[in-house]
């Protein structure tokens, strides 16, 4: 019998116990996978964004619009290559009152500053030329079933048209994709023409919520953001400029400290699990004390007896971890699909990596004490049942 076979055979001597223990480990790792992925969205949700862009908003709050007269001034800041701007439209899909993230933008500036949004050139041209034009992200368009050429009715919960109606209609002239998988997931926005919006709405004129600054190669982002904020200090439109990544992280943080809640749950789950598996291991070693003594009598070293017990614990955790994480991956994909990509839980490689660390830590935590006990057994005492 090989050593591995020996370990497996020992695990299966009490089938019910092993099965039940593995099942609780699986439950714990399923939760681990899903919650860590959820946490990941909030923790590192902006990792894929390079530091190539700065976002400028009003210092008080981004709900306070800034004047468009800032465009040439911002373009004049050394190191700033291009400037785009985005005005929040407050879009609402009338049928179910769900929010649509719509921004009024300058089409060609958007094209220039965001190379991550990929769309055929003729659609960009159409967007620039059609006053009532609108483009939508692929994920959103797929979810809503929108096709290029359709007229899309969209309400705004902020801006009425000049005639007082809050119902707008736009022509869908393009659907954009993301340049990478991460960006593709972000294609959930709608862009409309700022020029048209500015003229047609009742009270916002010549203003925008955000500026996106594309920097020249090798420009110092920190220095530029300081320079921009300095420029508007003590003006009625004081600004706050930060990297796009910080901007997104700050935005998510507003929702609350999801990380803290997730950590508490995981702590509770693993503490419980530790006890379950730890108890099983201790029990199985206790029952086998005479056998382990026989092994030692036969010439197995203390170290290899320690190894046997640790390997059993490891096998339990590893198998449970693999199946649990597998289940989490499947559930995550199901949730993403079920919500039409609106809520993506992606059990990614880093999460699997964390799970691997958890498996090792758990193995040591539950296996080490029983294993040491097995290692230190005195043959005479053990065989005598003392």
């Amino acid at each position: 019998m090989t050593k591995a076979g020996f370990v497996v055979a020992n695990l299966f001597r009490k089938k019910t116990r092993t099965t039940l223990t593995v099942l609780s480990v699986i439950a714990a790792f399923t939760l681990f996978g899903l919650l860590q992925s959820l946490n990941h969205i909030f923790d590192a949700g902006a990792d894929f964004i390079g530091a190539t862009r700065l976002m400028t908003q009003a210092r008080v709050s981004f709900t306070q619009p800034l004047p468009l007269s800032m465009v040439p001034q911002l373009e004049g800041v050394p190191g700033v290559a291009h400037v785009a701007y985005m005005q929040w439209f407050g879009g609402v899909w009338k049928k179910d009152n769900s929010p649509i993230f719509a921004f009024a933008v300058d089409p060609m500036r958007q094209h220039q500053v965001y190379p991550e949004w990929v769309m055929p050139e003729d659609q960009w041209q159409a967007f620039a030329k059609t006053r009532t034009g609108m483009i939508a992200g692929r994920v959103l368009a797929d979810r809503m079933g929108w096709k290029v050429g359709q007229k899309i009715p969209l309400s705004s919960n902020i801006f009425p048209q000049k005639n007082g109606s809050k119902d707008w209609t736009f022509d869908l002239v393009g659907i954009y994709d993301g340049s990478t998988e991460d960006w593709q997931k972000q294609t959930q926005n709608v862009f409309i023409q700022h020029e048209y919006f500015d003229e047609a709405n009742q009270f916002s004129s010549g203003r925008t919520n955000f500026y996106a600054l594309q920097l020249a190669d090798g420009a110092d982002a920190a220095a530029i953001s300081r320079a921009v904020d300095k420029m508007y200090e003590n003006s009625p439109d004081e600004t706050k400029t930060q990297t796009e990544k910080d901007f997104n992280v700050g935005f998510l943080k507003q929702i609350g400290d999801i990380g803290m809640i997730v950590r508490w749950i995981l702590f509770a789950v693993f503490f419980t699990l530790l006890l379950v598996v730890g108890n099983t291991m201790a029990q199985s070693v206790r029952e086998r004390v005479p056998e382990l003594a026989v092994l030692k009598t036969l010439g197995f070293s203390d170290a290899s007896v320690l190894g046997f017990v640790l390997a059993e614990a490891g096998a339990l955790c590893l198998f449970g971890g693999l199946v649990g994480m597998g289940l989490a991956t499947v559930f995550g994909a199901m949730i993403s699909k079920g919500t039409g990509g609106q809520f993506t839980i992606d059990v990614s490689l880093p999460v699997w990596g964390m799970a691997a660390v958890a498996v090792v830590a758990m193995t040591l935590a539950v296996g080490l004490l029983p294993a040491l006990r097995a290692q230190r057994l005195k043959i005479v005492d053990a065989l005598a049942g003392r």
Partner: protein
Amino acid sequence: MLSQISAITGLNLRSIPDRWTSSLVIVVGLAGVVAVFCALLAMSAGFASTLQASGRTDNAIVLRGGSGAELNSGLDRDSMLLAREAPGVRKGADGKPLASAEVIVIAELVRQGDANNGANITVRGVEPNAFVLRPQLKIVEGRAFKPGLRELIVGRGVTRQFQGAELGKVLRMRGSDWTVVGIFESGDAYESELWGDVEVAQTTFNRRGYSSVLLGLESPAAVRQVKDALQSDPRLTVDVTDQQSYFSDQTKQFRLTIGFLAGFVTAIMALGAIFAALNTMYAAVAARGKEIATLRALGFGGMAVVLSVLVESLVLALVGGLIGALLAYLLFNNFSVSTLGQNFTQVVFAFKVTPQLVVTGLVIALVIGFIGGLLPAWRAARLPITTALRQG
């Protein structure tokens, strides 16, 4: 029969201390499940109770039609004046309609313990009547702001969660300086706001209109009257809601999300706990196989054995559940957090571990204990006496 059951059960329960390590697994497992369950739902209960406390049924809030939240709303001066003259609005001490036209703007404050990420905070400009319409609001430190001055009073929730709005501090917003002169408590969503004089706010922030008008009603039923009058007026496009529904509508999405998360997490954890309980009870039964067989040889019935194992498992589950609920209560009750509310600004609220939640948590624990005890009990009762007696 009854005496048999109580005899075996008593025997079982008394022997728990001798095998406490394995019994501990059930207790800790269920403590974990119940604690997580209670803590998650305490969050949604706390959020809901904060917002519900904010709303009175004898106040009505007037917003621009279709705007849904004060942030998106805007009313010009004429609409504001028309709204306060609506029939059904009660009169104040001065004989004029009891109403407060308010304007909200958003400021950013930095969270306690954070370095640079700002969070949105509501700054509300109010009329003197605002305090009459919200009698729950009390100034606990400093004094009220003086009309005409750039002075602010700050909610207790804001000072708890964010920096830079302490008494005496000067806040800079859009090139203007505001002094914090007082701190107020109200136990509801308004505690997450900064308040100042509406006219000063309008001139400072260059707002000609108002965000909302809060009306005092003659009776809760008068909301219909106000609504009919204002919505049939061709000069106005407004929504009229009683203040309580306005706030409770805002909690729906949050409660749904948290409810889903809590349900999902609890379900998976409960599964894990059931397996753990089964494991423990099987071990408990196996360890006492001889004992049980002896009892049955003496004439104790199978039913008595089944029930005794079940009772043991239920008692352990209940203890675990109680510990879990207590933990959730000690760690999280009144634990203060904040999240984004309807106005895209922070609402500070505290977790509330309610008796209802605790009871539900204990029921979950008992169900798990029952399932975890049933199969092992069954096995214990069915094991042939002779085999069991010969074992080990």
